[in-house]
């Protein structure tokens, strides 16, 4: 042995150690071994005490009683208890007043003023093309006879975004300047970003009741985290060399913040604004379920009666609004670093431009009012609901079933339900409860750290304790099925797009639009195609999550070190070999991130799928809201949080923590 030359010994190494030894050397297997030993001890105990099968009833805590009493207490005391009278009451009033004030202002400006104002602002901050998009978008909203709902949504959005940005920026500032606060804030914000929107609805309703204040607060809570997160990251990410130079010139702390740290973080701040606006829109639409009037409400009402035409008419303005807001803020961010001279003549810069916009808007407003038209003229509208519904009827007749060879869309949905969703659900429900916990623990630990494993397992156990094991398994089965489809499609398209510049160029604008659309909107086409049920909910989830998965996969593969690829090619590897042996392994962190994002996005839409027959936890939330049974909805909401936490932690690569630190 010792006499062997280095080359000889290294060549034989793979064969020498026994299989067990190799297995022990692998970190993942070692972890599983530890878990297996723990399971061997604990499982018989658990089985003996509580028996296997579904979550034991001895271990559940029924929260319906206490939650119902809390809810009743709040309803009884909303007008008398000091907390409500002196704090929450004022908050609620302030929200109502400010939303109404903005709405009145928008009405006062009339359709002419609002359209002109938005177009000019878009032109100023983002250029001619986006201004044209804005102009067309608002015109289309008017033409679809959705002017007033659009203004209602816009009013809620404006107030919500201002509040979210204020709250987010303050939190971010605190987190950016104080190490200790950042350590506390970071995990909270990270977690808040993975929770489905539905989870936020119930708690605010519990406190404020159904209405605009609840809707606005839910929106703020949902939309503020990205602003806070990016502000903090931006402030912390400032080039230390610049900060040192600034300190060396004798700047005070305030000077340093105002002249260096904040300006250096401008890109992050604008990105935060962009994300906050998009999330606020997404939530403002969903919040129609708890009393936000506007476009979301129209979609919600239309979906309730499966009126696809009406839903579409309301969804188009939502999508256009999303595109306009996203493009405007994104373009503003891109222009930030550019040379000021490239931004047009001196006359159109600075306060003069803004004054010009104000004057022009006022003029157009006045013109509109003189013409006696503040609301979009009724003669200029196109009713698309009927033709769309006719088309849908035609689809029901011709595409739903009985199409030769391929079968109909409803057939597909039925098959997906009976061949995939049902067995998966039954399997998960039949799984002994401790088995589910073990699987969660093993997956989370192998992919992440013992910390993530612990959180995931505890979250899973909490679901059982809450007594919603069964509906949660149902939701989980939909998530897993949709995730599998998403990943197969997403990775396939992502790999293709990474290999072909042309395909990527075609995909990019499509993905851009898809990623800006609020979750709610995805329900409409799937309802049109697949009717209602669990399969359409899963389909909506797939469509919603797909763009992110494709994008992350493509970027991950593209960013693989070209030198490694080149050396593989120089060794004569085929394309397939390069992909399998170099690209995919090196892109592993990106692929794991894609899985993580996919899970989070799929869950969000599967939950919302409760509105279109997805059942399970989402349906419990909807029912809870609809029937005023807050206890039912709240328990489901907490279960959603736990499920989201569990799924995120299970798929959370250790990478995310470490890369985040440098940023």
């Amino acid at each position, binding site marked *: 042995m010792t006499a062997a030359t280095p080359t000889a010994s290294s060549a034989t190494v793979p064969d020498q150690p026994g299989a067990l030894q190799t297995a022990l050397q692998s970190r993942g297997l070692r972890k599983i071994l530890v878990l297996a030993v723990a399971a061997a001890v604990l499982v018989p105990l658990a089985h003996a005490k509580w028996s296997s099968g579904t979550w034991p009833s001895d271990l559940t805590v029924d929260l319906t009683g206490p939650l119902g009493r809390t809810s009743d207490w709040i309803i009884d005391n909303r007008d008398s208890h000091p907390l409500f009278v002196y704090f929450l009451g004022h908050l609620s009033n302030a929200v109502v007043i400010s939303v109404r004030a903005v709405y009145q202002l928008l009405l006062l400006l009339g359709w002419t003023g609002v359209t002109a104002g938005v177009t000019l602002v878009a032109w100023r901050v983002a250029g001619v093309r986006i201004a044209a998009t804005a102009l067309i978008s608002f015109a289309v909203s008017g033409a679809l006879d959705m002017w007033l709902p659009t203004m209602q949504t816009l009013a809620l959005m404006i107030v919500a975004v201002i509040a979210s940005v204020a709250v987010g920026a303050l939190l971010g500032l605190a987190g950016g300047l104080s190490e200790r606060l950042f350590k506390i804030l970071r995990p909270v914000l990270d977690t808040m970003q993975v929770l489905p929107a539905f989870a936020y609805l119930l708690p605010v309703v519990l406190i404020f009741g159904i209405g605009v204040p609840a809707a606005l607060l839910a929106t703020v809570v949902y939309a503020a985290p990205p602003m806070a997160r990016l502000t903090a990251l931006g402030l912390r990410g400032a080039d230390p*060399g610049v900060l040192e*130079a600034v300190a*060396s010139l*004798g700047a005070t702390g305030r000077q340093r913040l105002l002249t260096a740290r904040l300006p*250096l973080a401008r890109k992050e701040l604008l990105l935060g604004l962009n994300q906050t606006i998009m999330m606020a829109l997404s939530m403002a639409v969903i919040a129609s379920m708890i009393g936000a009037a506007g476009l979301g409400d129209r979609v919600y009402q239309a979906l309730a009666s499966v009126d696809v035409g009406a839903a579409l008419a309301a969804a188009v303005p939502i999508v256009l609004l999303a595109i306009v807001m996203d493009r405007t803020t994104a373009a503003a961010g891109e222009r930030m*670093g550019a040379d000021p001279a490239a931004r047009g003549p001196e006359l159109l810069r600075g306060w003069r431009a803004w004054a010009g916009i104000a004057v022009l808007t006022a003029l157009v407003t006045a013109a509109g009012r003189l013409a006696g038209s503040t609301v979009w003229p009724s003669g200029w509208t196109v009713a698309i609901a009927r033709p769309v519904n006719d088309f849908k009827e035609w689809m029901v007749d011709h595409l739903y079933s009985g199409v030769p060879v391929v079968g109909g869309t409803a057939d597909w949905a039925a098959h997906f339900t009976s061949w995939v969703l049902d067995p998966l659900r039954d399997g998960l429900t039949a799984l002994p409860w401790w088995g589910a916990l073990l699987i969660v623990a093993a997956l989370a630990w192998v992919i992440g750290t013992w910390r993530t494993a612990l959180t995931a397992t505890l979250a899973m156990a909490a679901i059982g304790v809450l007594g919603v094991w069964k509906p949660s398994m149902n939701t989980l089965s939909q998530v897993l099925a949709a995730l599998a489809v998403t990943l197969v499609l997403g990775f396939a398209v992502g790999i293709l797009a990474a290999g072909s510049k042309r395909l990527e160029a075609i995909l990019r604008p499509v993905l851009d639009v898809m990623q800006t659309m609020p979750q709610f909107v995805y329900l409409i086409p799937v309802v049109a195609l697949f009717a209602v049920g669990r399969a359409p909910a899963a389909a909506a989830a797939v469509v919603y999550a797909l763009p992110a998965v494709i994008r992350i996969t493509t970027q991950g593969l593209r960013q693989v070190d070209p030198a490694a690829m080149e050396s593989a090619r120089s060794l004569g590897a085929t394309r397939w070999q390069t992909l399998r042996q170099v690209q995919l392994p090196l892109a592993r962190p990106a692929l794991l991130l894609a899985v993580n994002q996919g899970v989070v996005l799929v869950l969000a839409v599967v939950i919302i799928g409760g509105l279109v027959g997805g059942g399970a936890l989402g349906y419990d939330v909807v029912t809870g809201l609809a029937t005023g049974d807050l206890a039912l909805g709240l328990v489901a909401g907490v279960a959603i949080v736990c499920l989201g936490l569990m799924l995120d932690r299970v798929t959370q690569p250790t990478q995310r923590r470490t890369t985040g630190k440098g940023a």
Partner: protein
Amino acid sequence: MAAAAPEAGIPQPREAADNLTAKDVRDSPDPRDVVFSVRNLWKVFGPKAERIPEDDELTGLSAQELRERTGCTAAVRDVSFDVHKGEVFVVMGLSGSGKSTLVRCLTRLIEPTSGGLDMDGEDVRAMDKTKLRELRRRRAAMVFQHFGLLPHRSVIDNVAYGLEIQGVPRAERRERAAEMVEKVGLAGLENRRPGQLSGGQQQRVGLARALAVDPEVLLFDEPFSALDPLIRRDMQEEVVRLHEDEGRTMVFITHDLAEALRIGDRIALMRDGKIVQLGTPEEIVGSPADEYVRDFVQDVPREQVLTVRRAMRPAEGGETETGAALAPDTLVADAIEAVARSGGAARVMDGKRCLGIVDSTCLLNIVARIDAGEVAA
């Protein structure tokens, strides 16, 4: 032309520099002339760093032993030196030798762990926040390796930034900044963003920013390490020119020996946080204090650094009367040319007095790294 230039041109600045250091060495240093006075300065990073300089047992340990014993890293260890008014004081060492930490300690960008630190006789370590800020604002300005420019500001606003911090009104600071931009040769680029400039141009902005506040001392932290060799050379000449024009005190950090020799009046060579040798370029190259320094300066073309003062031998007989005359601080390289042209030995003349003789053997000994002692033996 080529023959006359070396004698008349190059030695000139060297002479001026030598006079300064020679005076400092001879006279007991006048306290007013010392800008920075550093005494037994320590900077230790790590847990409970302050106990290390006080503990005689720990101070004796090598860097690695110290890290193993205490988990602390001593970046600057017991360093003492004076920076005199008007000189270019170079701190040189390889990366990790503590030189960058040392220069940051001077304005307490990094807080020293222990030791004495005076600027113009004032105790810097005892200064409160306000006084320290004043020091940084007006008395010592720094130029950084990675420039540290504000990317969202134009060149002129970057240069004016230090004045803005001081609260100088906009019109005035812009005017002064424009002068500095002109001075560093960036006229016409005032409204560019740093991102649109080359590395050399960016560093000129950094230099102008430091000059704009008219500081007593300029601190350079490896300012040219990130630049291309040709641009680096330009910038070094720029610094030499600035120093000749203004005579401003400079503390210059570098890891590049050639750079140190080119611009330094005195050089402190650092290794593992300690100064291993402090002297003029000629002293460092001519009489290395230990093996480490000797290794370090091994590849330096000695004839470019050493002067005839070091090469000469005592005059014998009538040699004092004949032959070409050279100033004592003529470089050996230049003397070689003079001796080769005249064909005989040359006299080293301090005014009318003949200090000694250099002939081809003396000069070759320098180039061949043979010490005078070795020859005699």
